């Protein structure tokens, strides 16, 4: 006998009787509750990610150590063969007109990551681009972008965006943001530039009939990179006003997007990023004391209230 820890079967039946869900959805939910059908999709996804992460880390170390014994040509050839095998599996599925499984998705991601490592290693060894070596990241972003569109892969699209962000100099180093007077302003401008490029990409995707599922990926990256850029500018004395203007624009755009598309994550970006960034700015520009603390507290409460208002608005619309 299968023992469920708790069962919501009776609730699903009642929902069906009330007409809130159709019979198919209710039957599927009941089946899941009873254990007559059980998906290990999430567990497999987790295992696949861990495996790909381990292989990528191993390849990264391998490339970093240069492997003089093997030699660069051999290493590059081995990596190219490995990535070709990964792409071949995805291409075969694509040409057969079948939908790629979660396993196929991660094999393709592994192929893309190996290509990144291989190209980076080749550039470091042969200096094809000379002093303009940064362009290899853009080439990589373009290659992954083309592959992502050709094979309809959201995961490869993420590697493309990550390569583009790296070309702009965004490497997820949060410590740089708080290095006032240092490179935070430069990082902020690069991040804003990257977010802007992503928004243009998103618009082009919509205009030229790109996959709809890609839009949310690009938008999420654009929002996060943009808000980090605004935060970096807000923390830089000379660029604070520009940072605040950009922060306000991004917050308004995010909340508008959330209201229009019902995607709650953008409401979270628009309120939480804005509230926490404003707190940082207030702490920087005002002298420490009761006034600034109360202002920061009010900012946090206002952020929470705004997010809750969005939640209530969603309830009311439903």
């Amino acid at each position, binding site marked *: 006998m299968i023992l*469920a*820890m*708790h069962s*919501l079967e009776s*609730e*699903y039946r009642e*929902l069906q009787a009330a007409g809130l869900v159709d019979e198919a959805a209710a039957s*599927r939910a009941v089946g*899941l509750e009873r*254990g007559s*059908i*059980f998906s*290990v*999709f*999430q*567990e497999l*996804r*987790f*295992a696949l990610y861990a*495996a*790909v*992460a*381990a*292989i990528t*880390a*191993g*390849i*990264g170390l391998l490339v*970093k150590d240069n492997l003089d014994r093997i030699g660069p040509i051999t290493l590059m050839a081995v990596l190219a063969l490995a990535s070709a095998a990964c792409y071949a599996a995805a291409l075969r599925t694509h040409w057969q007109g079948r939908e790629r499984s*979660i*396993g196929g998705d991660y*094999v393709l*991601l592994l192929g893309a990551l190996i290509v990144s490592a291989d190209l*980076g290693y080749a*550039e470091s060894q042969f200096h094809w681009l000379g002093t303009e*070596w*940064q362009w290899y990241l853009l080439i990589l972003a373009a290659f992954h972008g083309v592959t992502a569109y050709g094979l309809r892969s959201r995961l490869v699209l*993420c*590697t493309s965006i990550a390569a583009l962000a*790296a070309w702009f*100099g965004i490497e*997820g180093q949060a410590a740089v943001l708080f290095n006032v007077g240092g490179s935070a302003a*430069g990082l902020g*401008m690069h991040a804003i530039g990257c977010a802007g490029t992503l928004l243009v990409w998103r618009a082009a995707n919509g205009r030229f009939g790109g996959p709809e599922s890609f839009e949310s990926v690009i938008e999420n990256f654009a929002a996060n990179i943009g808000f980090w850029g605004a935060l970096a500018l807000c923390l830089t004395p000379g660029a604070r006003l520009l940072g605040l203007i950009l922060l306000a624009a991004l917050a308004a755009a995010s909340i508008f997007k959330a209201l229009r598309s019902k995607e*709650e*994550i953008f409401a979270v970006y628009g309120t*939480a990023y804005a*509230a*926490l960034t404003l707190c940082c700015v207030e702490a920087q520009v005002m002298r420490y004391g*009761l006034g600034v603390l*109360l202002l*920061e*507290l009010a900012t*946090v*409460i206002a*952020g929470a209230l705004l*997010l809750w208002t969005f*939640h209530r608005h969603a*309830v009311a619309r*439903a």
Partner: protein
Amino acid sequence: MIEFLPTPQQERWMAAAARLHLRNHPWIGQRTGGWSAPSFIARCAFFVLGLAACGLTAAVFEILSRGAALLAAGVTLLVAAEWLILRKRLFHAGVEEALWTGGLLMLAVHFVPSSGERGIAVTVALVLAVAAVRLLNPFLLTLAFSAASVAIEVVGGHHVWGEHDVAMAAGVFCYGAGASALLLARSRFSRPSHDHMVSWLMVIMPVCGFLWLVSQPAPAIRFGTGLASGIFALAALIAGVRRRSHAPLLACMASLGCVAYQLRDLTALPVKLKLIVWGSAALLAALGLNRYLRTPRHGITSLQLGEGSAALELAQLIGAGALAPRAAPQADAPFKGGGGMGGGGGADGSY
């Protein structure tokens, strides 16, 4: 009559509505008694904002009443959290959880003498446990058990930091808590939150137990932790498959990771090759399982059923982006600051 929490039936309606994406429907609102819970992503954001509010409130009272700052801040935060729960009927909303836990921690720190690690460790464990019970929060309960393992070590005479004593008691406690949760999960709970509490404990506590003992170089301890994690992984796998439950399967995977770590010296290969070889083995195993279960076997399938969770989808995308190499592996090329040509000079050349 004051309702301190949703009834089990109301909580079940909230869970059913969340699973079928009907959370905001008015029909559901009637059955949940007006209790309201946002999505997981919003809950996380509310929790972060709540934590920020806790810190700022404590800082405000530090200026206003230096001697009793923690007492005043703690009472204020608890009152605010209870107001949100009782009047606004928030349940698992994040903000009330942060305020309640932060408030009680401040009260506890005010009243408990700050001398010694012993009192602090026991107090933190108790505060987290009380908060977990009040708020029915699995994360806080898991933290409470973890803090209890620290308290066990401290009360046992060992210092948590700076000594290399064998944390056997804490390790055994954590493994025991995980095993008990695995056994307890056979029961049928009326509240989904009780279910989640047991699930969190069975996944996290064996890993905590392993972490307490992993730094010990003694072969017996290394063998013992590997064996314990292996036995737990096997038991969790059997339980997960028999009960058709995700938590034991996740517990199995986490414990298998612990076993793999203890087997790291099985071959003399360098770390990079071990990562590639074992990663490839794991990848092939996962691909094989994925293929095998494409056709459901005894009701188990590798196909996705229904829509995925938005939080998991987002985590997957961020994870894929995080795996991508960051910058060019240049050692001798000069850095072109200030954006370079076309803004492309930001990459710093580290690899």
